[in-house]
């Protein structure tokens, strides 16, 4: 096996080799650092590479494993963290000029939990400025490029994480998702991306965008890898006021249980309006695959989606403007133009608008909970189009309408940030241009195990997740 093949193995396969001492953490870390040096000048996936620290952590992991102190499947695994997560002693820029020199004194809870599980950090990945956007064309740290076609965007805001995982620059990454920022870049880069239930994973030590819609989750090459990372980071954190005390189940045990007897639903509306025909065909074919695996499939109305998108956008605009208010007044020149414009929209909304959106949220969550009593998971496209070119700013639909890239590519993911339900994107095909397409699987609150089980059944029945991009 050459170093490229090694770098692109699933995390679980790397863990097996590390556990059996067929591969050393130092050797694996060097492979990734060499690939970052070779490929990142093109991909711009990293803002900060912590090579010396990573090698020191790898050496420590190697000594522990050699001494029989194996901690589990993340021990000695090199990860990369979106540069929104606090890392003790390592700058955390949030992709901004404003926080360019910010060095946290502590790790985010999720980073600390992954370190406790034995994982090590290769560096901090590029993102949209303050995670407020969908392209990862960062005005301060460069434009992330899609490993499937560097002329195209990775999506965002966790675009650097997506590029790094897809190109084999790390074993897995952590992203954040306030409107689709894990699932959308995962779909555009051919990865698995999981936004867990709101409150399932701690947000402590994560630079906020929208407090009531921010989620943390894994970005991986396989469904099993997502389950492994989620197992390590899920659970109550008293330092996150939204953290749930609900016990954490075993996400790995039911992973191969299949979908026989599960009730799946396809939405009749909204999610198939203004969609690339190749995306629609791939998602409907994926639903057929799951039906043939033993699930039942029905088409359902989902009228909550459109108002959820409006209420979600309003809440995000307002909460982001509230967090940024001091800098918005004193340092507007330090923002990129797009994020500055979005923050200004939020600053001019009324308090009654925000409360109206939160009241709509109450109503929509109740309605969606009632609807989800009829089925176990909802299947939708993750994104209505494949990755746009770097120079595209709008999508032109056949009916003559135009939609900006951010609005279009987050249209199907945003409703589930407002609702807080778990949602995962898994590769489900490619366009005629060879660009990845994502299937979104949405479950009931805290039903991540079911979402992962459906995704794994689909992944096992297909070969999409085995394809690798040209730039890897």
């Amino acid at each position: 096996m050459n170093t490229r093949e090694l770098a692109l193995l699933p995390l679980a396969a790397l863990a097996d080799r590390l556990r059996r001492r067929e591969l050393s953490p130092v050797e694996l870390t060097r492979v990734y650092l060499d690939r970052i040096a070779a490929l990142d000048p093109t991909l711009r996936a990293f803002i900060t590479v912590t090579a010396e620290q990573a090698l020191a952590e790898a050496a420590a992991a190697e000594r522990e494993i050699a001494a029989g102190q194996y901690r589990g499947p993340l021990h000695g695994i090199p990860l990369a963290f979106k540069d929104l997560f606090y890392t003790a002693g390592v700058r955390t820029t949030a992709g901004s000029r404003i926080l360019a020199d910010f060095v946290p004194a502590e790790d985010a809870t999720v980073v600390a939990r992954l370190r406790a599980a034995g994982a090590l950090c290769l560096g901090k990945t590029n993102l949209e400025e303050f995670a407020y956007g969908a392209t990862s064309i960062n005005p301060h740290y460069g434009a992330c490029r899609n490993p499937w076609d560097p002329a195209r965007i990775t999506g965002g805001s966790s675009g650097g994480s997506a590029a790094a995982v897809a190109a084999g620059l790390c074993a897995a990454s952590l992203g954040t998702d306030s409107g689709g920022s894990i699932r959308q870049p995962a779909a555009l880069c051919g990865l698995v991306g999981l936004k867990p239930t709101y409150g399932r994973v701690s947000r402590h030590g994560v630079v906020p965008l929208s407090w009531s819609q921010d989620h943390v989750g894994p970005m991986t090459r396989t469904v099993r890898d997502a389950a492994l990372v989620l197992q390590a980071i899920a659970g109550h954190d008293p330092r996150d006021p939204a953290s749930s005390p609900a016990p954490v189940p075993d996400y790995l045990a039911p992973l191969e249980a299949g979908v026989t007897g599960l009730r799946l639903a396809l939405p009749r509306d909204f999610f198939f309006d203004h969609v690339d025909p190749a995306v629609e065909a791939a998602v409907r074919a994926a639903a057929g695959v799951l039906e043939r695996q033993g699930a039942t499939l029905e088409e359902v109305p989902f009228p909550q989606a459109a108002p959820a998108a409006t209420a979600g956008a309003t809440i995000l605009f307002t909460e982001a403007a509230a967090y940024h208010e001091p800098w918005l007044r004193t340092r507007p020149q330090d923002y990129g133009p797009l994020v500055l414009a979005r923050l200004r929209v939020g600053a001019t909304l009324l308090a009654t608008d925000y409360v109206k959106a939160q009241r709509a949220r109450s109503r929509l969550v109740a309605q969606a909970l009632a609807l989800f009593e009829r089925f176990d998971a909802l299947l939708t496209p993750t994104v209505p189009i494949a990755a746009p070119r770097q120079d595209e700013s709008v999508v032109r639909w056949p009916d003559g309408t135009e939609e900006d890239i951010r609005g279009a590519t987050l249209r199907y993911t945003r409703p589930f940030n407002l609702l807080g339900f778990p949602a995962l994107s898994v590769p489900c095909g490619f366009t005629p241009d060879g660009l990845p397409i994502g299937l979104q699987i949405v479950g009931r609150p805290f039903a991540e195990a079911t979402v992962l089980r459906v995704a794994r059944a689909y992944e096992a029945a297909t070969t999409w997740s085995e394809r690798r991009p040209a730039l890897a």
Partner: protein
Amino acid sequence: MTSPARPPLTREALAALAASAGLALTEPELAALLPPTAALFAALDRLDALDLQAVEPAAIFQLPAE
């Protein structure tokens, strides 16, 4: 109960909102801000169709359980 939609957002109204938020905007900045803000205001009015009169906001204040 639904309320009548607000009148379309004007440049003058937006200027007042921006000023009250402490933002110092140039005329071109104000002109650029108007379309997306007006679109959001209009979309918000459509949420009235959900009949929210008896609905409380989603929890933004919680005390810890015993």
